[in-house]
């Protein structure tokens, strides 16, 4: 009773708000529940879906293999499935601060090798699958993983360059960062998909997946660099002065004094930037890669299952939400721990 009075009916404004909200939202909420659960069709039966007034979750049930694995050969789907679980496992393992040691790089190297063998095959009796046929969730996760893995070191160099005492280096880094941050990701992806082939020497071709990956790395690096710069700026000036007083060279000062402290500060905001980047990988749909969102969009083109876009995109949002929400909880936990 006390809780109710304090949280719903404190004063007439609050009471009015509560009453108005309930009055306004009750009917739509009940309608949504009817649509999503009570009148919904769960069986993969297009006829029943067309007749029903509720949602057609049967569409997801029917298409889940294609949505998760794209055009990967059907009887080989266990390979991307195991790879997906392995990749998620690697990320979860790396989230433990206790494991942030040099050997973590070896764990990743081993894990990614296994994923590479599984996905491509061609050895140990696994039939070869070219990467043009990779698709679905694993493609989204791989684009995000390699994007972060390469953009992060690049961003450290860019951030150091931006704070460098050498005017030319600083100008180059500032120019790069501001250029990339001033244009939309699509324009960078277009650059990779339609412009880059023109810049390669004749006879050299570059895989579409690789080109998109390159664009994502170059794009993410500029955004990560600004977060790392925030970390660099947060360190007390005395730390720089003490390192200079000890007679350390620039690189000694950077690797032993500056970066360990700066990156510690930068990790929670970096995780938030990674959430944004993970969501941004969905833009590869526009240049025709088969990521999770593309497989969902393509499964909607099946004429037997036309008209279930709302259900399909809610499912897409839910899958992305799972990953992003987990990352945001993790980032919040890091922030509160950092204080101690």
């Amino acid at each position: 009773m006390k809780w109710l009075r304090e949280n719903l009916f404190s004063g007439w404004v609050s009471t009015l708000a509560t009453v108005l909200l309930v009055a306004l939202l009750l009917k739509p909420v009940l309608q949504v529940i009817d649509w999503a659960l009570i009148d919904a069709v769960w069986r993969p039966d297009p006829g029943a879906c067309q007749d029903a007034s509720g949602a057609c979750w049967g569409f997801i049930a029917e298409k889940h293999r294609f949505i998760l694995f794209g055009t990967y050969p059907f009887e080989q789907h266990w390979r991307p499935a195991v790879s997906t679980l392995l990749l998620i496992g690697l990320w979860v393992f790396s989230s433990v601060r206790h494991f942030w040691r040099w050997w973590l790089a070896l764990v990743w190297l081993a894990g990614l090798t296994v994923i590479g063998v599984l996905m491509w095959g061609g050895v140990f009796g696994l039939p070869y699958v070219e990467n043009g046929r990779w698709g679905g969730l694993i493609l989204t996760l791989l684009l995000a993983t390699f994007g972060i893995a390469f953009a992060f070191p690049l961003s450290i160099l860019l951030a150091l360059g931006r704070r460098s005492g050498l005017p030319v280096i600083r100008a180059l880094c500032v120019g790069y960062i501001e250029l990339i941050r001033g244009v939309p990701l699509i324009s960078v992806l277009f650059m990779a998909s339609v412009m880059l082939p023109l810049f390669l020497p004749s006879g050299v071709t570059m895989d579409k997946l690789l080109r998109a990956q390159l664009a994502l790395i170059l794009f993410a690096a500029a955004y990560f660099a600004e977060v790392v710069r925030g970390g660099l700026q947060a360190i007390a000036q005395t730390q720089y002065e003490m390192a200079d007083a000890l007679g350390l060279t620039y690189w000694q000062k950077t690797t032993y004094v500056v970066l360990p402290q700066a990156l510690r500060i930068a990790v929670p905001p970096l995780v938030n930037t990674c959430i944004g980047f993970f969501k941004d990988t969905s833009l590869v749909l526009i240049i025709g890669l088969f990521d999770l969102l593309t497989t969902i969009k393509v499964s909607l083109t099946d004429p037997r299952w036309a008209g279930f876009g709302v259900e399909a995109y809610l499912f897409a949002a839910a899958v992305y939400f799972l990953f992003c929400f987990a990352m945001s909880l993790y980032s919040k936990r890091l922030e509160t721990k950092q204080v101690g």
Partner: protein
Amino acid sequence: MRRLAYQAAAVAVALLVVGYLAHNASINLEARRIASGFAFLEREAGFEISESPFLRYGASNTYLSALLVGIGNTLRVAVIGIVAATLLGAAVGLFRLSKNFLLRTLAAGYVEFIRNSPLLVQLFFWYAVITEALPMPREALSPLPGVFLTNRGIYFPAPGSVPVLESFNFAGGFVLTPEFTALLLGLTVYTAAFIAEIVRAGVLAVGRGQWDAAFAIGLTRGQALRRVVVPQALRVMVPPMGSQYLNITKNSSLAVAIGYPDLVSIANTAINQTGQAIEGVAIIMAVYLTISLSISAFMNWYNARIARR
């Protein structure tokens, strides 16, 4: 001496890379018989554009006018989106701080769910809602007299012209196409979630003492918010708000995925027709950089103005 050597080396590497790429490009362009330069802008575009509210445009107009229509469409959705997202975001941000549990929880749920799924998914979702869930023009929903919601767009009465149902669709009045509506709705709802967090952080950044002082001189909660807290919170809020406004403008380029004719979508068509990818991408980038720099300049000016007070 060392400093000079490093910098000279950096310049040399940068020039070498650029020179090498330019060399490859000139060979490739010649081999594919693609003309270079911006002369194509004067040629006839030959494609129709589904909406052009500011300029009269037809397929016989030049690529230049097509691109101008695209810029107009980008600015139209960005400007309306910025205003709408600011209003919605400010409301949601203040709701999150409300004493009312229902209001607070709804606002928090909105922010978490919207921020953690990609904008592109949300755009497709809104587009599907409009084209699949709204009825055909014949059975249009009419929430207000003269306003009709259909899967072909939303019709409003305009001065001197009222939407009237003809054989297949409405004619007259003022129409928002499904593409524009989905893009505007998506950009507004998405960005408002981020703006709500900025507003909330801004209000929280104002110390408890300011509230107590305001209550002590007899102001109500609303008055304290308006007269004391918001003016101080604005200083914290302006820089991140500026970057959200930039984000709306840049994110409006996702229009290409749902077929709204913004700058990127028209430049993309031009690239596909002429093969002049370098010029097309350069135009896209130059326009967005100009818009970005203008917004930053404006926000810096505004920030300096409120900081002085």
